[in-house]
């Protein structure tokens, strides 16, 4: 094996030899440098491999033949090798990336570049504290040298700020080091550690100075203005190096000197870390320049790492796992984003809309963004999971909350940025060129993230059972994306079908019911995909990702699997939603509610894990402490998906703007994931209360209010798809109410309503999607009279609304009847009153939907409209057939559901005599009602037909209208603001209080962020002042309080 010392030798040798090359030979000198970087990478990688696979022992290298303290010693261990590999790989990629710049600037720049990485390598390996200082200085001088690579005045002035700030910091470091030497008499770190200097009078100050200087090198908030300016102004290639390589080295240095400080250091580091994490991400909110945004995010991530280091006493032997996961994700993703920034070449994040001229770049950007936020399958996901579990286990609730809040804030600006990239206006934006040397590093780091993510999941042991088969299928679909729609559609349907076939025997009870909703539902809705022409680029991998997540939820046995699947589902659905027109803001709010909800779920799982060794979902069943809080956290988390009142504002836009066959997926299927989550939660945790306050009663009220508000909002919509979206909110309110009843009948109602909701919402969204496709508008009042043009679609909508309205004889009534019985049994009459009120309000929007679109006056521009395509109608009629079956034979639906509920709630079950259902209060025979109503209808119709069979059909305007004959359908079709009196009377109930509330919260936070960031006034002297004030304040904290070092 090649000794680590050769890394330094090669770097130095290369740097010196480069001086002999002439400028003309720049290609050769570049190759020479690249070879050196590659060899350094090879050496570190070789050691890493040895440590990981061959039980290599940590080795010490003594220079000049003496043992320390009489010589400088280097150390090569597992941790060193990980960091060296990471840094050198980034260096190698950065060198490739900077090919043009380095060649243009000549050999001097290449020398500096190599020296920077030599500095970073030595900084990691050295065990001599003065040597550490020297090479930190070399690294920062080299960095300052590289910043000049960009000739702009901004880069130059940023470089000046950088060098002033680092010079001050290293001055402090130097004083600290010499003071340590004074007390310890040695520069060898291992010796210094043994002396416990912090208990020596004065020694503590020395240690403090070293510690604070190293921390300041890591750019803690708020003493970091100089670093932000550099991130903004430097060439993105350099930004990547500073963010990924230098910061990683800095973290390692901190970890290296931490034993000198000993235990009291953890508190200071954790405190600084969390302040940095929160502060930096908060200020990132107001940032609209991409590079500076990346700077804020980098600093935020380093803050998170500091926090993790500070929490070492609580994280125990998991610390390294967590820290490496966060660090590797950060380094690769941040480097990748900086490199992408150099390709896109847009200062403003809005300008990143240009990126989707090449969808593959968008995939890469998505990879990095999701890795940063900590989504699966990236290492950061597993690290974050472990972090939260350990914090909860040690009862560090405040830390847990702060970390999640910080991550959430980071998610806000990252996803806003990503939204601009996917959906922002990109008409006037400049084209960009993609050079091979710039794209290779990006691709390598993205692939690295996936590979390391997979490797990381195997390390947890727990994650060994994660099901990667659906994810492989997604990759396969991405690979065949060039094929036409019908092939991919068939493959997707076959894939889902096959998966259902192989998993079907293992499923039972609720898992079976929801698997059928998810998978059979998926197949039925995918059928509509055949109506699309062309390639539908990128659609199928995303659809499959959502379904992979959904099926993962069903199959999950552990909390980790559940959370993994939940996040995968969120990614897939996010992309599906953002594919719609004008859906940028909606997708963002969907994502934020999802991420926020996911963090609540994560926190809930973490708290549930306290005192238990297993990670099985069953831990929820014997929670040791905080039970009501865990329940509330998880319930709110799941309710972000069911869009309960207060958490619903993402839904209408997201569903309404989605494509015609995506709307049913996200509305009819995705929302059920939340219902499934609630079911799992309630089954495991059972009754919960805060003191005497029953949480379920609150849930029942939330469900009831959601139902009333959702339905009322639906009644006031002009946009047909928005109407359906609000209707979904309302319907899930019923489901929540039913579940909250915690009785056989309540659950029967909730689950059967969920199934029925899946059916009619698919039906209606597909039908309305077909209409919108034909008439090219979603505004209902612009339609009218389409019954004669689209009769088949009309029949679907008609049946759909009868089911929604819950009018006998169709299957919607069953749900109402069960709910009545359930309420009488439970006795929660007031929320129940609201639920039934909501049921009646549903009539309003049902009627409006069918009237404004299909009845009334046909518009002139729609006289040539054709029926919806066959492939849109086919799934609708399949569902119609099932609805008719369930309506005529209600126990075909209710009996299996009842049996699934039986093991948990056996009391009050329905008694079935054929199709006659008997409860404790009443009875209902759906089959008979169908026959009776049918019979009466036929007789009456026969009578009418007998009397009036020769009725003459008249033209559109042949109506008795104030003795005039109207000629304009626009003025005759009464559809706009259809329920005006209702709005006048009750409109105040639906004034957008909740969206106003969230908007005010958001604006408030942004305003605070904007105020705080004014401290970065761009002046180098202010930045130095920040550094000095930072030192003073933390000196006081360290020595003033009870936490003194």
């Amino acid at each position, binding site marked *: 094996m090649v000794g680590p010392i050769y890394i330094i030798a090669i770097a130095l040798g290369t740097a010196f030899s480069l001086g002999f090359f002439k400028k003309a030979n720049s290609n050769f000198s570049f190759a020479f440098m690249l070879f050196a970087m590659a060899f350094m990478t090879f050496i570190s990688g070789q050691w890493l491999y040895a440590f990981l696979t061959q039980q290599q022992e940590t080795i010490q290298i003594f220079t000049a033949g003496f043992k320390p303290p009489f010589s400088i010693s280097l150390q090569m261990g597992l941790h060193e090798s990980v960091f060296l590999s990471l840094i050198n790989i980034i260096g190698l990629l950065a060198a490739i990336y900077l090919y043009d710049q380095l060649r243009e600037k000549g050999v001097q720049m290449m020398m500096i570049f190599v020296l920077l990485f030599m500095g970073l390598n030595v900084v990691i390996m050295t065990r001599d504290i003065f040597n550490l200082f020297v090479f930190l200085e070399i690294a920062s001088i080299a960095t300052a040298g590289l910043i*000049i690579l960009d000739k702009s005045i901004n880069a130059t002035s940023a470089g000046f700020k950088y060098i002033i700030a680092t010079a001050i910091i290293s001055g402090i470091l130097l004083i600290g080091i010499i003071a340590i030497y004074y007390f310890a008499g040695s520069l060898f770190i291992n010796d210094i550690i043994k002396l416990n200097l912090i208990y020596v009078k004065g020694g503590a100050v020395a240690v403090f100075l070293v510690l604070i200087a190293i921390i300041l090198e890591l750019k803690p908030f708020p003493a970091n203005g100089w670093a932000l*300016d550099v991130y903004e102004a430097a060439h993105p290639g350099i930004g990547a190096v500073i963010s990924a390589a230098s910061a990683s080295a800095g973290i390692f240095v901190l970890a290296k000197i931490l034993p000198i400080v000993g235990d009291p250091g953890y508190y200071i580091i954790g405190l600084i870390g969390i302040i940095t994490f929160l502060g930096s991400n908060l200020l990132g909110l107001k940032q609209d320049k991409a590079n500076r945004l990346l700077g804020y995010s980098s600093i935020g991530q380093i803050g998170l790492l500091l926090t993790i280091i500070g929490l070492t006493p609580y994280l125990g032997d998991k610390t390294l796992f967590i820290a490496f996961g966060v660090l590797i994700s950060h380094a690769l993703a941040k480097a990748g984003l900086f490199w992408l920034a150099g390709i896109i070449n847009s200062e403003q994040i809005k300008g990143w809309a240009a990126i989707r001229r090449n969808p593959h770049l968008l995939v890469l950007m998505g990879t990095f963004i999701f890795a940063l936020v900590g989504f699966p399958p990236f290492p950061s996901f597993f690290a974050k999971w472990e972090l939260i579990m350990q914090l909860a286990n040690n009862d560090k609730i405040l830390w847990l909350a702060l970390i999640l809040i910080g991550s959430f804030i980071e998610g806000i600006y990252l996803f806003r940025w990503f939204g601009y990239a996917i959906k922002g206006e990109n008409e006037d934006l400049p084209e960009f060129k993609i050079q091979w040397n710039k794209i290779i590093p990006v691709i390598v780091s993205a692939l690295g993230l996936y590979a390391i993510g997979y490797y990381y999941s195997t390390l947890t042991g727990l994650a060994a059972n994660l099901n990667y088969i659906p994810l492989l299928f997604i990759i396969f679909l991405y690979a065949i994306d060039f094929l036409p729609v019908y092939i991919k559609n068939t493959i997707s349907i076959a894939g889902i079908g096959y998966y259902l076939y192989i998993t079907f025997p293992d499923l039972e009870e609720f898992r079976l019911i929801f698997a059928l909703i998810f998978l059979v539902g998926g197949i039925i809705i995918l059928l509509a995909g055949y109506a699309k022409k062309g390639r539908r680029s990128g659609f199928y991998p995303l659809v499959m990702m959502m379904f992979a997540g959904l099926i993962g939820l069903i199959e999950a046995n552990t909390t980790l699997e559940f959370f993994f699947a939940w996040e995968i589902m969120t990614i897939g659905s996010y992309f599906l939603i953002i594919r719609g027109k004008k859906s940028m803001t909606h997708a963002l709010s969907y994502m934020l509610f999802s991420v926020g909800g996911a963090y609540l779920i994560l926190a809930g799982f973490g708290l549930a894990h306290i005192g238990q060794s297993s990670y099985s979902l069953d831990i929820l069943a014997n929670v040791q402490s905080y039970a009501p809080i865990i329940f509330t956290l998880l319930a709110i988390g799941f309710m972000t998906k069911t869009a309960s009142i207060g958490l619903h504002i993402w839904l209408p836009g997201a569903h309404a703007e989605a494509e015609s066959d995506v709307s049913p997926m996200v509305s009819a299927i995705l929302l059920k994931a939340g219902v499934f989550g609630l079911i799992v939660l309630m089954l495991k945790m059972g009754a919960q209360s805060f003191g005497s306050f029953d949480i379920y009663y609150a849930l029942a009220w939330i469900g009831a209010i959601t139902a009333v508000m959702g339905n009322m909002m639906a009644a006031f919509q002009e946009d047909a798809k928005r109407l359906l979206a609000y209707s979904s909110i309302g319907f899930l309110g019923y489901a929540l109410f039913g579940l909250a009843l915690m009785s056989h009948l309540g659950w029967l109602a909730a689950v059967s309503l969920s199934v029925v909701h899946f059916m009619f919402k698919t039906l209606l969204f597909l039908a309305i999607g077909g209409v919108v496709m034909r008439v090219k508008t979603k505004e209902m009042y612009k339609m009218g009279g389409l019954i004669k043009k689209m009769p088949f679609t009309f029949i679907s909508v008609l049946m759909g609304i009868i089911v929604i309205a819950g009018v006998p004889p169709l299957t919607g009534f069953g749900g109402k009847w069960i709910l009545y019985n359930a309420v009488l049994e439970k006795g929660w009459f007031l929320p129940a009153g609201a639920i039934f009120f909501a049921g009646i309000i549903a009539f309003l929007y049902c009627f409006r939907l069918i009237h404004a679109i299909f009845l009334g006056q046909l518009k002139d521009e729609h006289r040539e409209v054709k029926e919806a395509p066959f492939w849109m109608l086919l799934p609708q009629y399949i569902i119609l057939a099932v609805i008719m079956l369930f309506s005529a034979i209600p126990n075909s639906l209710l009996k299996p559901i009842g049996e699934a509920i039986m093991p948990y709630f056996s009391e009050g079950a329905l008694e079935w005599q054929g199709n006659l259902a008997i409860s404790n209060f009443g009875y209902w025979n759906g089959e008979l009602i169908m026959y009776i109503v049918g019979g009466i209808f036929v007789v009456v119709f026969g009578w009418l037909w007998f009397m009036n069979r020769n009725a003459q059909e008249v033209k559109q305007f042949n109506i008795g209208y104030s003795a005039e004959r109207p000629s304009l359908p626009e003025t005759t079709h009464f559809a706009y603001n259809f329920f005006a009196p209702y709005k006048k009377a009750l409109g105040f109930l639906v004034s957008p209080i909740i969206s106003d509330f969230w908007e005010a919260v958001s604006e408030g936070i942004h305003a605070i962020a904007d105020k705080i960031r004014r401290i*970065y006034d761009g002046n180098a002297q202010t930045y130095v002042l920040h550094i000095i004030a930072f030192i003073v304040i933390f000196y006081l904290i360290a020595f003033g309080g009870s936490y003194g070092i």
Partner: protein
Amino acid sequence: MENLNLEIITLITGIILVLIGIWGLLTQKNLIKIVIGFTLFNTGIHIIMVSIGYVKNRTAPIIDQSVNINDVGNSVVDPVPQALVLTAIVIGLGVTALMLTYVLKMYQKRKSLEINNYNDLKW
């Protein structure tokens, strides 16, 4: 005056130089003066380093006539800080030179040495 020995004097001088340097860094608006402030700061640190390595009544760690060859350990001051300070001076030189390069570049671009004219990047 017994306490006011060489060790303390150099230490205090160093600290004063550091403070003056920081003061200059923070208050001067001229880029060159800021750099001078830094060099004062740096020099102060070097003096502090030397003073820490000094041991009373001993000579420089150079083996010549004044040093008893058999008692080197007890007759010279600690050589390590002196070695370190040499390195630090070299580094300080490099940093100062780089700073001045930057100042030069900035001046070439904007024809101004006023630090307030270089606040374009902020927030």
